[in-house]
Protein backbone atom coordinates (compact mmCIF):
# COMPACT_ATOMS: atom_id res chain seq x y z
CA UNK A 1 0.00 0.00 0.00
CA UNK A 2 2.76 2.43 1.00
CA UNK A 3 6.31 2.07 -0.21
CA UNK A 4 9.33 4.26 0.53
CA UNK A 5 12.30 3.64 -1.72
CA UNK A 6 15.67 4.89 -0.57
CA UNK A 7 14.53 8.34 0.52
CA UNK A 8 16.92 11.07 1.65
CA UNK A 9 15.48 14.08 3.48
CA UNK A 10 17.38 17.18 4.56
CA UNK A 11 16.80 20.21 6.75
CA UNK A 12 19.06 22.67 5.00
CA UNK A 13 22.40 20.92 5.28
CA UNK A 14 21.32 18.48 7.95
CA UNK A 15 20.94 15.04 6.42
CA UNK A 16 18.09 13.66 8.54
CA UNK A 17 17.00 10.60 6.54
CA UNK A 18 19.81 8.71 4.88
CA UNK A 19 18.37 6.24 2.44
CA UNK A 20 15.32 4.80 4.08
CA UNK A 21 13.12 2.13 2.53
CA UNK A 22 10.05 0.61 4.06
CA UNK A 23 6.78 -0.96 3.10
CA UNK A 24 3.34 -1.01 4.67
CA UNK A 25 0.81 -3.54 3.41
CA UNK A 26 -2.93 -3.12 3.36
CA UNK A 27 -4.55 -3.84 6.71
CA UNK A 28 -1.32 -3.97 8.71
CA UNK A 29 -0.09 -2.10 11.73
CA UNK A 30 3.54 -1.32 11.02
CA UNK A 31 5.66 0.35 13.66
CA UNK A 32 8.74 2.46 13.25
CA UNK A 33 10.73 2.59 16.47
CA UNK A 34 13.86 4.48 17.33
CA UNK A 35 15.30 6.83 19.89
CA UNK A 36 15.33 10.63 20.03
CA UNK A 37 16.38 12.29 16.81
CA UNK A 38 16.51 9.06 14.81
CA UNK A 39 14.35 10.62 12.09
CA UNK A 40 10.96 9.07 12.80
CA UNK A 41 8.97 12.30 12.58
CA UNK A 42 10.91 13.37 9.51
CA UNK A 43 9.93 10.12 7.84
CA UNK A 44 6.25 10.77 8.50
CA UNK A 45 6.54 14.40 7.39
CA UNK A 46 8.20 13.20 4.19
CA UNK A 47 5.28 10.89 3.52
CA UNK A 48 2.81 13.72 4.18
CA UNK A 49 4.63 16.06 1.80
CA UNK A 50 5.66 18.57 4.46
CA UNK A 51 9.40 17.90 4.23
CA UNK A 52 10.06 16.65 0.71
CA UNK A 53 12.73 14.01 0.27
CA UNK A 54 15.56 15.27 -1.93
CA UNK A 55 16.01 11.88 -3.56
CA UNK A 56 14.19 8.57 -3.48
CA UNK A 57 10.57 7.73 -4.19
CA UNK A 58 7.36 7.36 -2.21
CA UNK A 59 4.49 5.29 -3.63
CA UNK A 60 0.97 5.06 -2.26
CA UNK A 61 -1.32 2.50 -3.87
CA UNK A 62 1.21 2.29 -6.70
CA UNK A 63 1.05 6.03 -7.40
CA UNK A 64 4.16 8.16 -7.05
CA UNK A 65 3.42 10.78 -4.38
CA UNK A 66 7.01 11.92 -3.80
CA UNK A 67 6.34 15.45 -5.04
CA UNK A 68 2.58 15.59 -4.42
CA UNK A 69 1.16 18.45 -2.36
CA UNK A 70 -0.01 17.74 1.17
CA UNK A 71 -3.68 18.33 0.39
CA UNK A 72 -3.47 15.89 -2.54
CA UNK A 73 -1.86 13.32 -0.27
CA UNK A 74 -4.60 13.77 2.32
CA UNK A 75 -7.23 13.50 -0.41
CA UNK A 76 -5.67 10.22 -1.57
CA UNK A 77 -6.15 8.81 1.91
CA UNK A 78 -3.09 9.43 4.06
CA UNK A 79 -3.69 11.36 7.26
CA UNK A 80 -1.18 12.09 10.00
CA UNK A 81 -1.58 12.56 13.72
CA UNK A 82 1.53 14.64 14.31
CA UNK A 83 3.90 14.46 17.24
CA UNK A 84 2.81 16.72 20.08
CA UNK A 85 -0.82 16.36 18.87
CA UNK A 86 -0.95 19.81 17.26
CA UNK A 87 -4.62 20.30 17.90
CA UNK A 88 -5.93 23.80 17.27
CA UNK A 89 -5.98 25.23 20.81
CA UNK A 90 -8.45 28.06 20.22
CA UNK A 91 -10.88 26.11 18.08
CA UNK A 92 -13.54 24.11 19.86
CA UNK A 93 -13.35 20.34 19.95
CA UNK A 94 -16.11 20.27 17.38
CA UNK A 95 -14.33 22.72 15.08
CA UNK A 96 -11.15 20.68 15.39
CA UNK A 97 -13.07 17.65 14.16
CA UNK A 98 -14.53 19.65 11.28
CA UNK A 99 -11.05 20.67 10.20
CA UNK A 100 -10.20 16.97 10.04
CA UNK A 101 -12.99 16.59 7.51
CA UNK A 102 -11.90 19.70 5.60
CA UNK A 103 -11.63 18.03 2.19
CA UNK A 104 -14.88 16.13 2.43
CA UNK A 105 -18.17 17.35 1.04
CA UNK A 106 -20.53 14.56 2.18
CA UNK A 107 -22.31 16.15 5.10
CA UNK A 108 -24.11 12.97 6.08
CA UNK A 109 -20.92 10.94 6.15
CA UNK A 110 -19.19 13.64 8.20
CA UNK A 111 -22.02 13.59 10.71
CA UNK A 112 -21.80 9.80 10.93
CA UNK A 113 -18.05 9.84 11.47
CA UNK A 114 -18.47 12.49 14.12
CA UNK A 115 -20.78 10.14 16.01
CA UNK A 116 -18.28 7.34 15.48
CA UNK A 117 -15.53 9.48 17.00
CA UNK A 118 -17.69 10.27 20.00
CA UNK A 119 -18.25 6.53 20.43
CA UNK A 120 -14.52 5.87 20.38
CA UNK A 121 -13.83 8.76 22.74
CA UNK A 122 -16.96 9.60 24.77
CA UNK A 123 -15.12 12.32 26.68
CA UNK A 124 -14.88 14.37 23.49
CA UNK A 125 -18.63 14.54 23.24
CA UNK A 126 -18.81 16.14 26.67
CA UNK A 127 -16.09 18.57 25.67
CA UNK A 128 -17.61 19.32 22.27
CA UNK A 129 -17.95 23.08 22.77
CA UNK A 130 -14.74 23.53 24.75
CA UNK A 131 -11.59 25.05 23.25
CA UNK A 132 -9.10 22.34 22.29
CA UNK A 133 -6.38 23.97 24.36
CA UNK A 134 -8.34 23.46 27.57
CA UNK A 135 -8.24 19.66 27.27
CA UNK A 136 -5.82 17.48 29.22
CA UNK A 137 -2.89 15.87 27.41
CA UNK A 138 -4.67 12.55 27.03
CA UNK A 139 -7.85 14.20 25.81
CA UNK A 140 -5.86 16.22 23.30
CA UNK A 141 -4.32 13.03 21.97
CA UNK A 142 -7.78 11.54 21.61
CA UNK A 143 -8.92 14.67 19.82
CA UNK A 144 -5.92 14.52 17.49
CA UNK A 145 -6.72 10.91 16.59
CA UNK A 146 -10.44 11.62 16.22
CA UNK A 147 -9.68 14.62 14.04
CA UNK A 148 -7.53 12.49 11.76
CA UNK A 149 -10.25 9.84 11.52
CA UNK A 150 -12.66 12.51 10.30
CA UNK A 151 -10.74 12.45 7.02
CA UNK A 152 -11.63 8.74 6.61
CA UNK A 153 -8.01 7.80 5.97
CA UNK A 154 -6.97 4.59 4.27
CA UNK A 155 -3.59 4.92 5.92
CA UNK A 156 -3.19 6.56 9.31
CA UNK A 157 0.23 7.84 10.36
CA UNK A 158 0.61 8.15 14.12
CA UNK A 159 3.58 9.98 15.61
CA UNK A 160 4.28 9.01 19.23
CA UNK A 161 0.69 8.89 20.48
CA UNK A 162 1.92 7.77 23.90
CA UNK A 163 4.19 10.77 24.42
CA UNK A 164 3.84 12.28 27.88
CA UNK A 165 0.74 10.32 28.83
CA UNK A 166 -0.03 8.32 31.97
CA UNK A 167 0.24 4.52 31.48
CA UNK A 168 -3.49 4.01 31.85
CA UNK A 169 -4.22 6.57 29.14
CA UNK A 170 -1.60 4.96 26.92
CA UNK A 171 -3.36 1.60 27.33
CA UNK A 172 -6.60 3.21 26.27
CA UNK A 173 -5.09 4.91 23.24
CA UNK A 174 -3.39 1.72 22.07
CA UNK A 175 -6.61 -0.20 22.43
CA UNK A 176 -8.33 2.34 20.23
CA UNK A 177 -5.52 2.11 17.68
CA UNK A 178 -6.06 -1.64 17.48
CA UNK A 179 -9.78 -1.08 17.04
CA UNK A 180 -9.24 1.47 14.27
CA UNK A 181 -7.01 -1.04 12.53
CA UNK A 182 -9.45 -3.92 12.85
CA UNK A 183 -12.15 -1.79 11.27
CA UNK A 184 -10.00 -1.61 8.15
CA UNK A 185 -7.55 1.28 8.46
CA UNK A 186 -3.90 0.55 7.79
CA UNK A 187 -1.56 2.08 10.34
CA UNK A 188 2.02 3.28 10.43
CA UNK A 189 2.86 3.87 14.07
CA UNK A 190 5.93 5.77 15.18
CA UNK A 191 6.90 5.13 18.80
CA UNK A 192 9.65 5.42 21.36
CA UNK A 193 7.59 3.14 23.55
CA UNK A 194 8.80 0.07 21.66
CA UNK A 195 7.23 -2.32 24.14
CA UNK A 196 3.70 -1.15 23.51
CA UNK A 197 4.19 -0.61 19.80
CA UNK A 198 5.62 -4.06 19.08
CA UNK A 199 2.81 -5.67 21.03
CA UNK A 200 0.11 -4.39 18.71
CA UNK A 201 2.10 -4.24 15.44
CA UNK A 202 2.42 -6.90 12.76
CA UNK A 203 5.75 -5.65 11.51
CA UNK A 204 8.44 -3.38 12.83
CA UNK A 205 11.32 -1.27 11.59
CA UNK A 206 14.10 0.04 13.77
CA UNK A 207 15.47 3.44 12.84
CA UNK A 208 18.82 4.80 13.95
CA UNK A 209 20.28 8.13 12.77
CA UNK A 210 18.27 8.21 9.58
CA UNK A 211 18.76 4.57 8.57
CA UNK A 212 16.80 1.37 9.08
CA UNK A 213 19.03 -0.96 11.05
CA UNK A 214 16.62 -3.83 11.52
CA UNK A 215 13.21 -4.97 10.35
CA UNK A 216 10.94 -7.95 10.70
CA UNK A 217 7.76 -9.34 12.19
CA UNK A 218 6.99 -7.60 15.48
CA UNK A 219 7.15 -10.85 17.44
CA UNK A 220 10.65 -11.60 16.17
CA UNK A 221 11.90 -8.12 16.95
CA UNK A 222 10.64 -8.45 20.50
CA UNK A 223 12.70 -11.64 20.91
CA UNK A 224 15.83 -10.05 19.46
CA UNK A 225 18.39 -9.52 22.25
CA UNK A 226 19.76 -6.35 20.68
CA UNK A 227 16.32 -4.80 20.56
CA UNK A 228 15.62 -6.03 24.06
CA UNK A 229 18.62 -4.28 25.51
CA UNK A 230 18.44 -1.11 23.42
CA UNK A 231 14.71 -0.47 23.25
CA UNK A 232 12.86 -2.70 25.66
CA UNK A 233 15.01 -2.17 28.74
CA UNK A 234 15.68 -5.89 29.15
CA UNK A 235 19.25 -7.01 29.87
Amino acid at each position, binding site marked *: MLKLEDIHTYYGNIHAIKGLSLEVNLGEIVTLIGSNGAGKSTTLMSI*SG*ITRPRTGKIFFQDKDITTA*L*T*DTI*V*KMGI*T*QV*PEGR*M*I*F*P*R*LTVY*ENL*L*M*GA*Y*LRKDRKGIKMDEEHCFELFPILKERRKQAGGTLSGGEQQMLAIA*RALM*ARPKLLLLDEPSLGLAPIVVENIFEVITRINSSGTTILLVEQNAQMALQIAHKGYVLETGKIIMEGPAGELMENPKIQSAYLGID
Partner: protein
Amino acid sequence: MFEQQLINGLTLGMIYALIAVGYTMVYGVIQLINFAHGEIFMLAAFLAVTFITVFGLPIYIVIIMTMGCCALIGVLLDIFAYRPLRQSPRLAALITAIGMSIFLQNLAMIIWGSRPKPFVQSALPPFLRTTALTVGDASISWLQLFIFGIASLLMIILFLIINKTRVGTAMRALSQNRTSAALMGINVNRVISFTFALGSSMGAVAGIMVAIYYNTLYPTMGYVAGVKAFAAAVLGGIGSVPGAMIGGIVLGIAEALGAGYISSLYRDGIAYAVMIAVIIFRPSGILGKSTLEKV
Protein backbone atom coordinates in the same frame (compact mmCIF):
# COMPACT_ATOMS: atom_id res chain seq x y z
CA MET B 1 -18.83 69.61 22.22
CA PHE B 2 -18.18 66.33 23.94
CA GLU B 3 -21.00 64.55 22.13
CA GLN B 4 -19.94 65.98 18.81
CA GLN B 5 -16.36 64.83 19.25
CA LEU B 6 -17.55 61.45 20.39
CA ILE B 7 -19.64 61.06 17.25
CA ASN B 8 -16.85 62.27 14.99
CA GLY B 9 -14.47 59.93 16.76
CA LEU B 10 -16.78 56.98 16.44
CA THR B 11 -17.14 57.56 12.69
CA LEU B 12 -13.41 57.78 12.29
CA GLY B 13 -12.92 54.81 14.57
CA MET B 14 -15.18 52.59 12.48
CA ILE B 15 -13.03 53.43 9.48
CA TYR B 16 -9.82 52.66 11.35
CA ALA B 17 -11.36 49.40 12.46
CA LEU B 18 -12.14 48.43 8.87
CA ILE B 19 -8.51 48.96 7.90
CA ALA B 20 -7.12 47.43 11.07
CA VAL B 21 -8.83 44.07 10.54
CA GLY B 22 -6.81 43.71 7.33
CA TYR B 23 -3.53 44.14 9.19
CA THR B 24 -4.50 41.83 11.96
CA MET B 25 -5.87 39.00 9.81
CA VAL B 26 -2.79 38.91 7.59
CA TYR B 27 -0.59 39.04 10.68
CA GLY B 28 -2.61 36.18 12.12
CA VAL B 29 -2.01 33.84 9.20
CA ILE B 30 1.54 34.70 8.08
CA GLN B 31 2.96 36.86 10.90
CA LEU B 32 3.66 39.66 8.45
CA ILE B 33 2.87 43.33 8.94
CA ASN B 34 1.62 44.11 5.48
CA PHE B 35 2.80 47.70 5.16
CA ALA B 36 1.27 47.89 1.69
CA HIS B 37 -2.21 47.52 3.17
CA GLY B 38 -2.57 51.32 3.46
CA GLU B 39 -1.83 51.59 -0.25
CA ILE B 40 -4.71 49.27 -1.06
CA PHE B 41 -6.91 51.67 0.89
CA MET B 42 -5.52 54.53 -1.22
CA LEU B 43 -5.91 52.65 -4.50
CA ALA B 44 -9.55 52.02 -3.61
CA ALA B 45 -10.24 55.75 -3.43
CA PHE B 46 -8.64 56.36 -6.83
CA LEU B 47 -10.26 53.34 -8.46
CA ALA B 48 -13.67 54.42 -7.17
CA VAL B 49 -13.27 57.92 -8.58
CA THR B 50 -12.04 56.46 -11.86
CA PHE B 51 -14.99 54.09 -12.12
CA ILE B 52 -17.36 56.99 -11.51
CA THR B 53 -15.79 59.41 -13.95
CA VAL B 54 -14.90 56.95 -16.70
CA PHE B 55 -17.87 54.61 -16.60
CA GLY B 56 -20.42 56.84 -14.92
CA LEU B 57 -21.55 54.03 -12.61
CA PRO B 58 -23.69 54.61 -9.52
CA ILE B 59 -21.83 54.75 -6.22
CA TYR B 60 -23.06 51.48 -4.72
CA ILE B 61 -21.94 49.50 -7.79
CA VAL B 62 -18.64 51.37 -7.68
CA ILE B 63 -18.12 50.34 -4.07
CA ILE B 64 -18.70 46.68 -4.88
CA MET B 65 -16.48 46.79 -7.97
CA THR B 66 -13.73 48.50 -6.02
CA MET B 67 -13.94 45.89 -3.28
CA GLY B 68 -13.50 43.20 -5.93
CA CYS B 69 -10.55 44.96 -7.58
CA CYS B 70 -8.80 45.57 -4.28
CA ALA B 71 -9.37 41.97 -3.22
CA LEU B 72 -7.63 40.93 -6.43
CA ILE B 73 -4.78 43.40 -5.89
CA GLY B 74 -4.31 42.04 -2.36
CA VAL B 75 -4.16 38.48 -3.66
CA LEU B 76 -1.68 39.39 -6.40
CA LEU B 77 0.44 41.26 -3.87
CA ASP B 78 0.64 38.12 -1.78
CA ILE B 79 1.31 35.77 -4.70
CA PHE B 80 4.03 37.83 -6.34
CA ALA B 81 5.63 39.70 -3.45
CA TYR B 82 5.20 37.64 -0.30
CA ARG B 83 4.65 34.02 -1.29
CA PRO B 84 8.15 33.55 -2.75
CA LEU B 85 9.51 34.64 0.65
CA ARG B 86 7.41 32.33 2.81
CA GLN B 87 10.41 30.23 3.87
CA SER B 88 12.77 33.21 4.19
CA PRO B 89 13.49 35.09 7.41
CA ARG B 90 10.62 37.35 8.38
CA LEU B 91 12.65 40.48 7.92
CA ALA B 92 12.86 39.80 4.17
CA ALA B 93 9.08 39.81 3.84
CA LEU B 94 8.80 42.89 6.04
CA ILE B 95 11.21 44.85 3.88
CA THR B 96 9.38 43.65 0.79
CA ALA B 97 6.14 44.94 2.29
CA ILE B 98 7.68 48.38 2.77
CA GLY B 99 8.99 48.21 -0.78
CA MET B 100 5.56 47.30 -2.14
CA SER B 101 4.06 50.20 -0.21
CA ILE B 102 6.46 52.65 -1.85
CA PHE B 103 5.98 51.01 -5.24
CA LEU B 104 2.18 51.29 -5.11
CA GLN B 105 2.33 54.90 -3.92
CA ASN B 106 4.54 55.82 -6.84
CA LEU B 107 2.43 53.84 -9.26
CA ALA B 108 -0.59 55.87 -8.15
CA MET B 109 1.36 59.10 -8.60
CA ILE B 110 2.26 58.10 -12.16
CA ILE B 111 -1.31 57.18 -13.03
CA TRP B 112 -3.28 59.87 -11.21
CA GLY B 113 -0.72 62.58 -10.39
CA SER B 114 0.47 63.57 -6.97
CA ARG B 115 -1.86 66.50 -6.28
CA PRO B 116 -4.88 65.96 -4.05
CA LYS B 117 -8.18 65.59 -5.86
CA PRO B 118 -11.69 66.12 -4.58
CA PHE B 119 -14.15 63.24 -4.59
CA VAL B 120 -16.76 63.30 -7.37
CA GLN B 121 -19.53 64.97 -5.41
CA SER B 122 -22.04 64.63 -8.24
CA ALA B 123 -21.98 60.86 -7.73
CA LEU B 124 -23.26 61.22 -4.18
CA PRO B 125 -26.83 61.90 -3.14
CA PRO B 126 -26.97 65.55 -1.99
CA PHE B 127 -28.65 64.80 1.33
CA LEU B 128 -25.49 63.00 2.59
CA ARG B 129 -24.07 66.19 4.02
CA THR B 130 -27.26 67.23 5.72
CA THR B 131 -28.06 66.51 9.34
CA ALA B 132 -29.80 63.23 9.99
CA LEU B 133 -30.40 63.70 13.69
CA THR B 134 -29.21 65.72 16.63
CA VAL B 135 -28.17 64.43 20.00
CA GLY B 136 -27.87 67.19 22.60
CA ASP B 137 -25.93 69.88 20.77
CA ALA B 138 -24.26 67.40 18.48
CA SER B 139 -25.45 66.75 14.96
CA ILE B 140 -24.97 63.56 13.05
CA SER B 141 -24.89 63.77 9.27
CA TRP B 142 -26.38 61.18 6.98
CA LEU B 143 -22.86 60.48 5.78
CA GLN B 144 -21.71 59.67 9.30
CA LEU B 145 -24.73 57.49 9.75
CA PHE B 146 -23.98 55.65 6.50
CA ILE B 147 -20.35 55.16 7.40
CA PHE B 148 -21.39 53.80 10.74
CA GLY B 149 -24.02 51.53 9.19
CA ILE B 150 -21.91 50.14 6.37
CA ALA B 151 -18.90 49.60 8.63
CA SER B 152 -21.04 47.81 11.21
CA LEU B 153 -22.58 45.63 8.54
CA LEU B 154 -19.17 44.71 7.16
CA MET B 155 -17.89 43.89 10.63
CA ILE B 156 -20.83 41.58 11.22
CA ILE B 157 -20.29 39.87 7.87
CA LEU B 158 -16.59 39.53 8.64
CA PHE B 159 -17.36 38.10 12.05
CA LEU B 160 -19.69 35.52 10.52
CA ILE B 161 -17.19 34.56 7.82
CA ILE B 162 -14.41 34.06 10.35
CA ASN B 163 -16.47 32.22 12.93
CA LYS B 164 -19.12 30.33 11.03
CA THR B 165 -17.75 29.31 7.65
CA ARG B 166 -15.44 26.50 6.62
CA VAL B 167 -12.84 28.80 5.13
CA GLY B 168 -13.03 31.11 8.16
CA THR B 169 -12.42 28.19 10.49
CA ALA B 170 -9.52 27.17 8.26
CA MET B 171 -8.12 30.70 8.60
CA ARG B 172 -8.23 30.44 12.37
CA ALA B 173 -6.77 26.93 12.28
CA LEU B 174 -3.96 28.13 10.05
CA SER B 175 -3.13 31.00 12.37
CA GLN B 176 -2.89 28.58 15.29
CA ASN B 177 -0.75 25.90 13.68
CA ARG B 178 0.28 26.05 10.07
CA THR B 179 1.78 22.55 9.87
CA SER B 180 -1.25 21.02 11.46
CA ALA B 181 -3.56 22.94 9.12
CA ALA B 182 -1.62 21.62 6.14
CA LEU B 183 -1.88 18.08 7.53
CA MET B 184 -5.68 18.47 7.54
CA GLY B 185 -5.51 18.95 3.79
CA ILE B 186 -6.09 22.69 4.02
CA ASN B 187 -4.54 24.35 0.98
CA VAL B 188 -2.54 26.84 2.99
CA ASN B 189 -1.75 29.21 0.13
CA ARG B 190 -5.36 29.37 -0.94
CA VAL B 191 -6.49 30.27 2.57
CA ILE B 192 -3.78 32.93 2.81
CA SER B 193 -5.00 34.38 -0.51
CA PHE B 194 -8.51 34.42 0.84
CA THR B 195 -7.29 36.31 3.91
CA PHE B 196 -5.65 38.95 1.73
CA ALA B 197 -8.81 39.26 -0.37
CA LEU B 198 -10.99 39.68 2.68
CA GLY B 199 -8.75 42.24 4.38
CA SER B 200 -8.20 44.20 1.17
CA SER B 201 -11.89 44.46 0.36
CA MET B 202 -12.60 45.78 3.87
CA GLY B 203 -9.77 48.30 3.49
CA ALA B 204 -11.19 49.29 0.11
CA VAL B 205 -14.50 50.35 1.59
CA ALA B 206 -12.62 52.36 4.21
CA GLY B 207 -10.63 54.08 1.47
CA ILE B 208 -13.73 55.16 -0.40
CA MET B 209 -15.38 56.37 2.80
CA VAL B 210 -12.40 58.47 3.84
CA ALA B 211 -12.20 60.03 0.39
CA ILE B 212 -15.87 60.94 0.61
CA TYR B 213 -15.74 62.05 4.26
CA TYR B 214 -12.79 64.41 3.83
CA ASN B 215 -13.58 65.05 0.17
CA THR B 216 -10.01 64.47 -0.88
CA LEU B 217 -7.75 61.74 -2.24
CA TYR B 218 -4.02 61.69 -2.84
CA PRO B 219 -1.37 58.99 -3.39
CA THR B 220 0.10 59.21 0.12
CA MET B 221 -3.24 59.08 1.93
CA GLY B 222 -2.70 55.41 2.68
CA TYR B 223 0.36 56.13 4.73
CA VAL B 224 -1.23 58.10 7.58
CA ALA B 225 -4.39 56.02 7.63
CA GLY B 226 -2.28 52.89 7.49
CA VAL B 227 -0.14 53.89 10.45
CA LYS B 228 -3.22 54.73 12.48
CA ALA B 229 -5.01 51.53 11.63
CA PHE B 230 -1.86 49.62 12.44
CA ALA B 231 -1.76 51.42 15.80
CA ALA B 232 -5.37 50.35 16.28
CA ALA B 233 -4.48 46.74 15.49
CA VAL B 234 -1.60 46.85 17.96
CA LEU B 235 -3.84 48.47 20.55
CA GLY B 236 -6.42 45.72 20.17
CA GLY B 237 -3.78 43.00 20.14
CA ILE B 238 -2.26 42.16 16.78
CA GLY B 239 -3.76 38.96 15.41
CA SER B 240 -7.09 39.46 17.16
CA VAL B 241 -9.97 40.50 14.91
CA PRO B 242 -12.33 41.70 17.65
CA GLY B 243 -9.29 43.45 19.11
CA ALA B 244 -8.74 45.35 15.86
CA MET B 245 -12.37 46.42 15.84
CA ILE B 246 -12.23 47.69 19.41
CA GLY B 247 -8.78 49.20 18.90
CA GLY B 248 -10.01 51.16 15.88
CA ILE B 249 -12.96 52.60 17.70
CA VAL B 250 -10.97 53.47 20.84
CA LEU B 251 -8.30 55.15 18.76
CA GLY B 252 -10.82 57.11 16.69
CA ILE B 253 -12.51 58.43 19.81
CA ALA B 254 -9.23 59.20 21.56
CA GLU B 255 -8.10 61.10 18.54
CA ALA B 256 -11.27 63.13 18.15
CA LEU B 257 -11.39 64.00 21.85
CA GLY B 258 -7.69 64.89 21.82
CA ALA B 259 -8.18 67.07 18.79
CA GLY B 260 -11.22 68.73 20.33
CA TYR B 261 -9.91 69.33 23.84
CA ILE B 262 -6.16 69.70 23.40
CA SER B 263 -5.43 70.82 19.89
CA SER B 264 -6.15 69.48 16.45
CA LEU B 265 -2.42 69.75 15.85
CA TYR B 266 -1.98 66.72 18.08
CA ARG B 267 -4.48 64.63 16.13
CA ASP B 268 -1.91 62.42 14.43
CA GLY B 269 0.39 62.39 17.44
CA ILE B 270 -2.25 60.68 19.54
CA ALA B 271 -2.16 57.54 17.42
CA TYR B 272 1.61 57.30 17.86
CA ALA B 273 1.37 58.02 21.57
CA VAL B 274 -1.23 55.29 21.99
CA MET B 275 0.87 52.82 20.04
CA ILE B 276 4.02 53.56 22.02
CA ALA B 277 2.12 53.32 25.30
CA VAL B 278 0.68 49.96 24.31
CA ILE B 279 4.06 48.62 23.26
CA ILE B 280 5.57 49.70 26.58
CA PHE B 281 2.79 48.78 29.00
CA ARG B 282 0.81 46.03 27.36
CA PRO B 283 2.53 44.63 24.28
CA SER B 284 -0.15 42.03 23.78
CA GLY B 285 -2.83 44.71 23.36
CA ILE B 286 -6.35 44.79 24.77
CA LEU B 287 -7.48 41.38 23.57
CA GLY B 288 -4.22 39.85 22.38
CA LYS B 289 -2.75 36.67 23.68
CA SER B 290 0.71 36.92 25.06
CA THR B 291 2.90 37.79 22.12
CA LEU B 292 5.70 35.61 23.38
CA GLU B 293 6.57 33.17 20.69
CA LYS B 294 6.53 29.48 21.14
CA VAL B 295 9.99 28.00 21.16
